[in-house]
Structures are given as structure tokens and as C-alpha cells.
């Protein structure tokens, strides 16, 4: 702000305690930021796993106790974070490409079968709209269509699926790119958009507000596979491996199924 008037002089008696308070606040904030405790077990997971990972880790913590932290973002950003050396133990990716990218560079490790779940791509419409018109007709009659960004897996799968259906060029002018799948889901759920393409698991999250009008064939976009890997520089390598094993347990499969994933 422009200092247009001389500031009223603050009496020294007030200034002293004020400075003290300010300083102690800063110190408090700083000490909150860097406590001396050991690093927590950190899971970096793709945005589409936001709801299922807390449940998985709760079940896992019963078997292997200890604090767990998770952070969610687009798979691509998580991969970049790991590449830049962000502290993490487990990486749950929403596509195999980024998983392989890190694997090739030795930044993550995993076993042979690192795919732990599968998802499907669906066309959703607001729940008050008809769902039986068919893919092409729904896309043609919607004024705008929501897709995830062209750089996040959900957006790339959607582009592939629409290309395969021969509809991409036709609908391109109507496409609104959401920052991530959740934003597309929000737009359709609130009736902003007549249609959107999201994961099946997302559609289930707001089942009352959106309906699934079409499920894309896996052949159209390739399998949507979730992979798990332990970060090479992890603080908790053993716990990370235990978590990967846990993902194959019946208990984990039950949680995944409940959220609409197909466990593998």
C-alpha cells in the first residue's frame, strides 16, 4: 500500500512487548515447520485415489503401526516431485508411463507385478439428464463437455477414447479442460456442464448428482492401471514394501472394490 500519511508514532512501551509477541509467533511457526521427530511414512498418490488411500492406510496401520502422511496430486506432478527429490516412501501412480519413467531412472523400485488396481473411463451427465441417448448423441447435444487437462492421465485417456470413437475433432470446440478430474466432476454435478469424462470411481463419489451414460471400452484407451512403487530414497523402505504387499491382501481388495476399483 502506498504510505500516504506519516505513520502515527508507536510509543516505545507498546513496541517492546509487540515485538516480543511477533518474534515468539514467528519462532513458534518455524518450530512447527521443522520438528525433530523422525520423518513420517509418506505416500504420494494420484488424485483419483484421494478417497481410497486414507481407508487403505487406516487398515494398513493396524498391521504396521505408525504415523502415515499422504499427498495427492496429478500423477505427473508427483513423479516430478520424486524426481526433484521430495521426501516420499511410496508412489501410487494412475498410469504406467510415469511409473516406468521413475523406474528407468532408478528413482523407484518395485516387483514384477506392480499394478494393484484398474479403473474405467465413463461419460457422466447431471443426474436429471437422460442417459440412454448414446455416446455420440449426448456429446453432440451438450453445449460444453468437460475433460481433464491434456497433461493428466484422465485427460489423455479421454482424448484417446474420443479419438477411437471418431468424435474428438467434432467435439473439440466444446471442450472445457478441468485442472483435474475432480473439477470436471464438480462442474457436471452442479449442472455447469452437460457432460464430462471421468473415472468410474469418481462418478461413484457423487452418485446422487451424476449418472453414468456410457462406459468406454478398455480397448479404446488402453487399460487404466494403478501402480505402486517404493521410492529408492525412502526413509521407510521396509514399511514401503510391506505396504505394497498389503495392497494385494484381501483386506485391501475389499476396500478397493468398495470404491469402484478393480483390484488386481
Amino acid at each position: 500500500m502506498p504510505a500516504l500519511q506519516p505513520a502515527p508514532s508507536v510509543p516505545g512501551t507498546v513496541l517492546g512487548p509487540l515485538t516480543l509477541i511477533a518474534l515468539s509467533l514467528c519462532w513458534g511457526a518455524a518450530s512447527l515447520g521443522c520438528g525433530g521427530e523422525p520423518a513420517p511414512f509418506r505416500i504420494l498418490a494420484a488424485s483419483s485415489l484421494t478417497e481410497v488411500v486414507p481407508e487403505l492406510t487406516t487398515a494398513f496401520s493396524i498391521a504396521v503401526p505408525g504415523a502415515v502422511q499422504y499427498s495427492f496430486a496429478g500423477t505427473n506432478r508427483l513423479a516430478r516431485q520424486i524426481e526433484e527429490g521430495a521426501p516420499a516412501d511410496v508412489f501410487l501412480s494412475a498410469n504406467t508411463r510415469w511409473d516406468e519413467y521413475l523406474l528407468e531412472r532408478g528413482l523407484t523400485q518395485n516387483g514384477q507385478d506392480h499394478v494393484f488396481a484398474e479403473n474405467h473411463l465413463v461419460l457422466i451427465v447431471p443426474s436429471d439428464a437422460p442417459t440412454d441417448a448414446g455416446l455420440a448423441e449426448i456429446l453432440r447435444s451438450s453445449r460444453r463437455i468437460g475433460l481433464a487437462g491434456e497433461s493428466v492421465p484422465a485427460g489423455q485417456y479421454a482424448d484417446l477414447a474420443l479419438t477411437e470413437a471418431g468424435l474428438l475433432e467434432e467435439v473439440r470446440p466444446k471442450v472445457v479442460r478441468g485442472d483435474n478430474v475432480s473439477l470436471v466432476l464438480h462442474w457436471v454435478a452442479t449442472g455447469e456442464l452437460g457432460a464430462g469424462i471421468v473415472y468410474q470411481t469418481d462418478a461413484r463419489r457423487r452418485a446422487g448428482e451424476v449418472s453414468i451414460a456410457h462406459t468406454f471400452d478398455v480397448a479404446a484407451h488402453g487399460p487404466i492401471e494403478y501402480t505402486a512403487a517404493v521410492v529408492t530414497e525412502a526413509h521407510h523402505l521396509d514399511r514401503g514394501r510391506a505396504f505394497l504387499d498389503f495392497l494385494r491382501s484381501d483386506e485391501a481388495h475389499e476396500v478397493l472394490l468398495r470404491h469402484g476399483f478393480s483390484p488386481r
Partner: protein
Amino acid sequence: MVDPATAIRLSLIVGLLATCLGFPVAVAAGWLLARRHFVGKTALSTLLLAPLVLPPVVTGLLLLKAFGARGPLGGLDVPFTLTAAVLAAFTVGLPLYIMAARSAFEAVDPHYEEVSVSLGVSPWATFRRITLPLALPGILAGAVLTFARALGEFGATTVLAGNIEGETRTMALAVYTLLEMPEGEEGITFLAWVSIAIAFVALAGYELTVRWQRRRLETRR
């Protein structure tokens, strides 16, 4: 898919429109807050300044609630258009604009206005010919800040306006999109340099207007 030049053009359009549209609002609200005492003044100033404190994504969601298809202003058909990007930038920039205008008006000695009115000049003419010109540099400093804030706007824009190439994909959104593409490096570097250049020009403009305001008030004293 991502054209940096288009993004720069869109950003400049959004920034300029938000700044121009904000001018009358900032002048009216700034003057009201500086010169008048009325019931609900605190409530009004809180409402107007809230976007400064709210996370921009929340501001975007609130705007989407108001202007969305099922919102009270849904008939205006704002979301996912250039208008939406301007509205988002306007809303998040307005607090800075109003605060600058308010302190600019507060710095004008009310004595001048009293003398003018006592000499038979109407209050409106007094405002136009005395108060506004004296406060103008300070208000323009606010305009520069608003413009700068508009260029950086991201959160409210993604929610209300989406990320549409050639329509709402401004510089900040373009950088964000490029960041996630393996081949985006070149575009990011270019846009980063342009942003830095614009930031320097804007801040220099801010500094100049602030000095202008100070000089103007000194010479009149």
C-alpha cells in the same frame, strides 16, 4: 495445443479489462470507506476485501455458485468464457484497488473540499475537480497492483473459467499446463521471462504513481 503468444494476449486483455472495470467500483467504494460513516460500513468493507484473504479457489467456487447454471445469475451465461476470466481477475484484484483508493482519498485534506463547497461549488463538481484529481495517482497505483494481480490470477480462473485454449487459458494457466508436458520446457521459459518483464514494468509503474501522489500532495500543502 498451448500457444504462449495467445496466452500473453489473453492475459493482457483480462488484466486491462479487470483494471478498467474496477476503476469506478474502486473509486466509489474507496471514497465511501474513506469519507462516510454509515451503518454496515465494517460489513461492506469486509465483504469487498474478503477475496484478498480467501483462497482464490474458494472465491472461484463462490463465483461459480452465483453465476453457475443453477445460480441466481446463471442467465448471464458467464462460466467458461473470457468474461468469466475477467470476472475472476476483477474479483480477486478489487481489494487491492479499493484499499489503494481508500488511502488515496484519506490522504486528501477534507479542508479543500469544505472551502470549495463553501464557495458555492456543488459537491459533485468538488469531487470531480478537487478530490478525484488529488487522489488520482494513489488510485492509479491501485490500478497497477490490480493489473499485476490479474496477470497472476490462477485459482479462481480455473474453477470459474476452465482452461480453454484461446479463450480462458491465460499466462498462468498456460505455464501450469506446459509444466505437466514433457515438451513444455521452451514455452515455460518464454512465458516466465515475459512474466518477469511485465512484473518489473508494473512495479516500476506502481513506484512512479506512488511518488507522483506524494509530490502532488506536498505541493498543494
